[in-house]
């Protein structure tokens, strides 16, 4: 296996610089004392959803389509050592970013298969046979047209856990601030809340979240009992009175699931 792959699998994202590292929080960095120490953070790239990434980098895909036709297989991800030169960063390449995506998808599939209920917030190992759990594992990683919507995760992952009523909203530097009346009901005891905004008219609709692209909403940051924020690209907008609703969702978690790594 390529060294960069094994580093990726150990959650080191060095050059990848995903958003959560760019939005650096204390604990990420490099220190050089008597030895070189590197701190890094790993977290799911998608903290709300469970859809597996199904794509392969284009050059590798095309090459493997040809190979697969000859060999009668359907494999696209190979950890085999690449011959030096011809195939380096070429036809058998997985891509470190993509590999991190695949690892995340399998990790989520296992959490969904093992943990009780809808697998959110719980630490309890669910009852059920291995076959039942394997079915959930496969169901998480399958193509859209083969998803079984009668079992986890598709049966309930995107279910709302409540509804709140936004009464005003504003946007500054692509962050939306929402005020609700009455209180939104999302407790700060958890940091895994998400939201699907569904505002009614005019400019307010530019704050809405499409469930076609975010079926389980987008993560929010709780400000207080009546106020929360979420990332929302758009023009700066002063506080505006709005009508509509917002579905409250639960995902995987925010900063509480930042896995801090220490390389030395």
């Amino acid at each position: 296996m390529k060294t960069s792959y094994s580093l990726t699998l150990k959650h080191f994202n060095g050059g990848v610089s995903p958003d959560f590292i760019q939005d650096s929080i204390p604990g990420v960095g490099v220190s050089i004392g008597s030895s070189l120490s590197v701190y890094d953070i790993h977290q799911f790239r998608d903290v709300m959803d469970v859809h597996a990434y199904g794509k392969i980098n284009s050059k590798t895909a095309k090459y493997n389509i040809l190979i697969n036709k000859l060999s009668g297989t359907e494999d696209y991800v190979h950890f085999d050592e690449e011959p030096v030169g011809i195939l380096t960063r070429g036809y058998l390449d997985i891509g470190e970013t993509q590999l991190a995506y695949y690892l995340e998808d399998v990790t989520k599939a296992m959490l969904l298969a093992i943990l009780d209920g809808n697998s959110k917030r719980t630490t309890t190992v669910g009852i059920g046979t291995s076959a039942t759990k394997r079915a959930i594992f496969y169901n998480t990683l399958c193509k859209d047209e083969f998803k079984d919507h009668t079992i986890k995760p598709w049966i309930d992952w995107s279910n709302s856990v409540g509804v709140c009523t936004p009464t005003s909203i504003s946007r500054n530097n692509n962050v939306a601030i929402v005020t609700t009346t009455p209180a939104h009901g999302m407790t700060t005891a958890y940091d895994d809340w998400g939201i699907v905004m569904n505002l009614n008219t005019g400019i307010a609709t530019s704050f809405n979240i499409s469930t076609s692209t975010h079926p389980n909403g987008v993560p929010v940051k709780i400000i207080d009992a009546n106020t929360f924020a979420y990332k929302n690209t758009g023009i700066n907008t002063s506080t505006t009175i709005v009508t509509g609703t917002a579905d409250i969702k639960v995902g995987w978690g925010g900063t509480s699931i930042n896995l801090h790594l220490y390389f030395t």
Partner: protein
Amino acid sequence: MSYNFDWPEIPFTGAEVEAFVDAYKGLAESIIDEWDNDSYHIYSFPVDGSDNNGETISTLKAPFRKRETIKILLEYGLIYAAFIVKQRVGNSGPGTDFNLGNSPYTPPLTDDEKTNLIKSLGCIFTKEEMEDAYRKNNGGKPAPFPIGPELFDNGNPSDDVDPDNQQLRDDDPPENCPDKNARENFYLGLANIPVFSSCYRDIKAKLLDRYLSCNSNVFTKNDLGSKSDSLKNGLQEFMDNYSEGQKQCNLRGQCVTHKTNITNSLTLAQKTRMGAGPTDIIWQTSFYGSAGQRLCLHTLFGTAIVITNSSGTVLRVIDDFDFVYGNVSDRPDISYTGQANPGKKPGQYFDPAGYQLDGDGNPVPVGHPTAVGATVYPPVTNLNDLPNNQNAWDPTEIGRNIVGSNYINGNGKGQPVPININFE
């Protein structure tokens, strides 16, 4: 081949974590051991009922079909999965204390990994600099192994593809696509100049450019540039202007239905393919009416599929930019509209079986219920037989002339362009 796992040490403790880790390892081993027996989870027959030449197809997404790959991902996935459980438990100890230097996870690194890690930190890592540095630090001796930059390239997900896409799998060489001529390039350039570019002519010119260049890349919101808001607002105004099923008829009693709710006629898989969420509404629209024409949507789309949320907010518009007087897209069903890599077939005027005309003078297949009279017209072979294509002052008809001319004189040239504009 052995599938024994090489499980990592788990640096977190606690009853819940230990129970989870045991369950994780047990399930992972079960997945790998039963891989062959679970093949019904991994392979199936096509959902569209075709026999796929008697071959099964993979139900799992492309990266997850190989047992060896899954084994490796399962092995490395354990740490983070266990960490999430540890965090949920919320008790003290490694996994909850994030003081710098007290990280919960210290991955062991091999020498190669250390080397790569240092390189990845952004040191000056040209081959020459590295060799110079090595010699300087080692009494002028050359490095005992080849030195060269081998930094992560990190892949580029924007270039990623779904290898199950049929177009990628076809063996056919790309079709001949002659360069556009001077007249075509002049027209396409003209449409981008203000005054001429109004009424989405610049957008239509971009689409026509792709059609004539045999470029079937999906036309997205990014391709709209500054016209994105205008188009969304136009579509929103159109959708707000009409009620479901509302029709507009002319004096001859010929009618168009402005918008028809087709959501319930589609399966979940079809809706998913179209990018519609569970509460979204899918509309078949026709812009051949007063509002559609006023908003300049009729010559851009003609007809299209518009997806709104349950409140009626326009979320997405999908269509295939094609021509009955050129090539039209060839799709398995309506849910594939706007998807990448459309097939193509001759437009109605060039149907080898000929065509008839409906009450509006539009070509329809022979025997179609809307056909008027008994006249069956042969496939068009002369540009003059295509209606409304010779007005040198009307950009729309210049476009028709170009498209028709390319089909007749350009060996059937013209590639339908998928339009899939997500306004979110």
